[in-house]
């Protein structure tokens, strides 16, 4: 099945089985390896991307549903030279240890901060409830998300979703 995907502002044509998880297409067909395979069951959050503003678990999302939707992956939040506010905050707070869960954490946080620029700690915890980190950097992740909210406010405008990865 031929599907047209809009990822980080760019259009890609792929020809895959409609039931293929979005994660596989991102990683295998588009070489966007930011989103990670964790459990493959939608339970750990490592594969989280943002679709039309909502945090979505790409390992349990059939790609056939993505036609015409706007997909953002962690690559869409900034570049190595020019990290976006979330990426800058995670670096500043040294919020990663092994780093495997971090792209998912960032994307869930991104969806949250787009709706609510100054979330309370409880709101951050609620939003990240299904993102698991096994290294135990939770407190730094919380700090990084608070910091990202500040950076976004200082920048004055909500971050765009359109930077190519």
């Amino acid at each position, binding site marked *: 099945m031929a599907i047209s995907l809009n990822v980080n502002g760019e259009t890609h044509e792929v020809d895959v089985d409609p039931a293929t998880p979005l994660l596989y297409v991102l990683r295998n067909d588009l070489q966007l390896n930011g989103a990670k395979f964790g459990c493959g069951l939608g339970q750990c959050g490592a594969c989280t991307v943002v*679709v039309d503003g*909502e945090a979505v678990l790409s390992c349990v999302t*059939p790609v056939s549903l993505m036609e015409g939707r706007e997909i953002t992956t962690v690559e869409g939040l900034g570049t190595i030279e020019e990290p976006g506010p979330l990426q800058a905050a995670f670096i500043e707070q040294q919020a990663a240890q092994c780093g495997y869960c971090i792209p998912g954490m960032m994307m869930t946080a991104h969806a949250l901060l787009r709706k609510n620029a100054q979330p309370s700690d*409880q709101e951050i915890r609620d939003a990240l409830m299904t993102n698991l980190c096994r290294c135990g950097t939770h407190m730094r992740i919380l700090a990084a998300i608070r910091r990202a909210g500040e950076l976004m406010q200082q920048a004055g405008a909500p971050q765009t979703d359109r930077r190519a990865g």
Partner: protein
Amino acid sequence: MRVLMRVAAGVLILLLIAAVGFFALAWKGEIEPVAAVDRAQFDQELIEQGARLAAVGNCIACHTVPGQPAFAGGLALPTPFGTIYSTNITPDPETGIGKWSEEAFQRAMREGVDREGNHLYPAFPYDHYTRVTDEDNRALYAFLMTRQPVNSTAPENELPFPYNMRMILAGWKLLFFEEGAYHPDTAQSEEWNRGAYLAEGLGHCGACHSPRNRFGAIDPERHFGGGEAEGWQAYAINTESPAPIPWDQESLAFYLRQGWHEHHGVSRGPMAEVTGNLGLLPDSDIAAIATYVASVMGEPDAERQARAEALLAEVSQSQSPALVDAAPAAAAQPGSAQGDGAAIYAGACAGCHDGSRPQPFGGLPFSLSTAVNAPNPQNIVNVVLYGLPPADGEATSVMPAFGGVLNDEQVADLLAYMRERFSDAPAWENLVELVARTRSGEHKVAIRPSDGIERGPENVGASGGAED
């Protein structure tokens, strides 16, 4: 003319007598307030017994706003007649039941009347609580009066005329309320009677699991015949149970104890609070409730039993640890509803629900699912849109919400496919409309974790309008 006058006068007098009689019945006096109740006056053992009984009664679920202090009231209870707000049952003297004597508490449980003599709305299930013994009420009183007092006043009920007139409740009681303690059935075992006492009294299972008439009263003809609670279907738990694998005493006891069963899946919606609360009960009480409910459900007939055995054999065969075979139906043509539903199922659901991981962390095979086999698809719509939120700080089952990914038509396609593939029951109708009403919040759904309402955020998983 004179005859007519006489008849009219006679009618008038009869009406007057009826009115006086009704007023005498309806009028309930105030019970004198008591000064601050001293915690030390309650025996610790009595308080602990009260805690277990409060868990059976699930008091906390209605008398707590999620995330707020326990028993402080204020939770909105939508009813067909308007919105009723639960009251503060902490011992705060100003806003709670701090001035209530034990006598006032006993009367409220038995007659549905507050300390000042106002009739209570049957959203407070005194039609069940009237069965509770004086001893158990004493323990409940001791438990509640030793909670932390919280100063908090519930919002005013939003009930239109005439439902805002509490006096009409006297009429309701006259028609539908049967006051009085539980009478043991001597033909049954002690365990059965214990279970019946708990289930029909404090446990008030039938408050959700029985259909109600247009006056909001439980239809006695259809005891345990299935009802509704907080936007969820409470399945029939009598002979009409839609469970593909018939329940028995053992599976019920396991489910009530653990909150899941390998042939039935995990408890969710308001039932998750119920099974979470029952954790405080001794095994003997859980077993008693299961014995009673299993006897109401009855033995399945040979045909149903044979079908259940065939289903279980089929499921155990397909649950090999080998790679999940999600493809058979996905081969259907995309573009047709069935094709779309099959592709969504294969990509989104099969990984867990056709997998080899056992319950409660794996998904239930849908051929065993009551939700997929039930006459009304509301529960499966709720779970697809909002998922199952995890409990805090413990290993629990969790299902992601798919409301952000699937639009209304896609949810409907998926469910139509699942119904066709996993159930012999007729197709559901008006699925798209039902999904849209659930998503918009027009049909309100409570989405909560299983580990205690006061720790649950108000709106786990539900988007925007799902709560008000």
